[in-house]
């Protein structure tokens, strides 16, 4: 297990490098000129040249990348073209709401999604199955921004129970978290149902019944545990997408998080901020994939011992 763990963790380092190069290249291929954005429409060609010079935009791309990485390793993410503040400071202020939102959405959606899936599989063809799958299909089909707006209309405007936006109290997390997690809950419910139905047909589940095990333990210890290997894969992909989903939810609920910052920065061609954000998004994806890989090892001894 130890070796497997170390191998996986080390494997993420080259991946991070490749990702950083890709982000850098793509970003510089987007049309648009940060110097023009900074200086405004009335700026002369002379001023633009000077700004580009100051920002290092005239250097060859490889040099720009090396400088960027050099700064990165020294903990310097650069300075925002727009605000003139250090990027790290800007991100840090935005990190907390986004992470909190992500976790609150993740926890309920994963737990509820898997629970609905398992229940539907065990009660296949019964009322619980139909209710569960109705919820799941609704969750998959409803677009997030629309759900957000409807929830605001019902719970904030009509009933006045919850705030329409911002993150001032714990109540203000409820609607954004519901909006963000709904899709994941739905996908996981469907997936864990089919995965459970598959494992329930396995020979070892029959063995567990043949030895006289109680049905709920047959389901949990033998079927569920083994069905998780497949569920974890999908859960990882879905949770990885949460940060991207937060872009939308933060906009709908006017939450000052990283998603909103990204949208603003792209509009302004604020390269340094975009770069840092994308790097962070990729890091999140890589970390979650790493966790998924490690969970594989925990759940499936065959992988662990390879």
């Amino acid at each position: 297990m130890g070796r497997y763990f170390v191998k996986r963790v080390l494997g993420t380092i080259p991946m991070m490098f490749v990702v950083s190069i890709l982000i850098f290249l793509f970003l510089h291929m987007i049309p648009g000129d940060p110097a023009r954005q900074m200086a405004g429409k009335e700026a002369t060609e002379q001023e633009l040249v000077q700004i580009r010079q100051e920002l290092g935009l005239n250097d060859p791309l490889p040099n720009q990348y090396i400088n960027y990485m050099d700064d990165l390793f020294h903990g310097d993410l650069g300075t925002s073209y727009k605000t003139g503040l250090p990027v790290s400071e800007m991100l840090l202020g935005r990190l907390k709401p986004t992470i909190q939102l992500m976790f609150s959405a993740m926890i309920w959606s994963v737990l509820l999604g898997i629970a609905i899936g398992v229940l539907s599989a065990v009660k296949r063809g019964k009322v619980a199955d139909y209710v569960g799958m109705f919820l799941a299909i609704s969750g998959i089909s409803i677009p997030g921004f629309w759900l957000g707006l409807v929830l605001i209309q019902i719970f904030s405007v009509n009933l006045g129970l919850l705030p329409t936006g911002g993150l001032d109290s714990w109540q203000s997390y409820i609607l954004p978290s519901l909006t963000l997690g709904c899709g994941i809950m739905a996908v996981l419910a469907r997936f864990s149902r089919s995965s459970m139905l598959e494992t329930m047909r396995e020979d070892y589940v029959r063995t567990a019944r043949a030895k006289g095990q109680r049905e709920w333990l047959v389901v949990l210890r033998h079927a569920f545990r083994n069905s998780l290997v497949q569920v974890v894969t999908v859960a990882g992909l879905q949770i990885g997408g949460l940060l991207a989903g937060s872009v939308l939810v933060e906009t709908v609920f006017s939450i000052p998080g990283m998603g909103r910052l990204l949208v603003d920065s792209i509009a302004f061609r604020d390269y340094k901020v975009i770069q840092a954000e994308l790097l962070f998004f990729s890091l999140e994806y890589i970390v979650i994939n790493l966790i998924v890989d490690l969970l594989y090892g925990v759940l499936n001894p065959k992988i662990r011992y390879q």
Partner: protein
Amino acid sequence: MPEKLLLDVRHLRTEFTQGKKGSVVAVNDVTFQIEKGEILGLVGESGCGKSVTALSIMSLLKDTPGKITDGEVYLEGNNLLRCSEEEMRKIRGENVSMIFQEAMSSLNPAMRVNAQLVEAILLHTDKTKREAEEHALKMLGQVGIPDPARVGRSYPHQLSGGMSQRVMIAMAMSCDPHLLIADEPTTALDVTIQAQILDLMRKIQREIHTGILLITHDLGVVAEMCSRVIVMYAGRIVEEAPVQHLFYEPMHPYTKGLIASVPKLGSGVTSLPSIPGSVPDLSMMPPGCKFAPRCRYAQDRCREEEPPLVELSGGRKCRCVLVQDKEATVE
């Protein structure tokens, strides 16, 4: 009821629902007995209802479309089909155990071997966890596993097929069941390993006096292991006989065909005789004798009415009008 009787299956009928089309009868009017400490062979082609019979006895048809619609299954006088799910749960593993063809996939891949044995032991005994662990090791040793401690710590994927089947047997025998149902226990194994597993089962039968229902399609295994044999065809028992009689003097045309199709060393025959045609589809059964379309002795009356399973002399039973006629003239 005789003291020696262990399992008494009477008129067992199991049907499988097939969507809206209705249902097919996979096991029909199956009646047989096993005495204490006896090895009874149950042979037949794939799909003839051998495994469904076994699963029906265990009430393990959950998660299949199968349902027992008639009959009685007495285990030591106790009608299993009348038992509640909770009562049945206590009987499974304690009074009657089962091992399967695919031993490797029959073990939970995410649990260590000893944990799976301990689970079975704790379910049916008052042993503490530690005692159960010791008992598990003892069981692994008894089924001839050379290094029980190491195998106990292993996961199923680290074991060979033969080793997995030994583990399955150890698990099945861990609570001293009176009946062991072995569903094609050696089919997936190499010939040498097959012999070892069969030896092991014979040892269990001899030493612990466990009755064994041995399901197989391998007549060689039957000849070596069983005292009595039941032959099934299309969900019905077509012949029952002591093993010697069945091989030397098969009565039912299907049994004759089966035995004739076994290659014999040194017989000089270059091509093996085979039974023409194939097993009828369960949903399109012929009206009369189910074997009539493939039977070379078949007469018109065979195709009209299904013959009953009739008891003959010498503890034999046969479902064939021709055999019954012959027997009648002899008498």
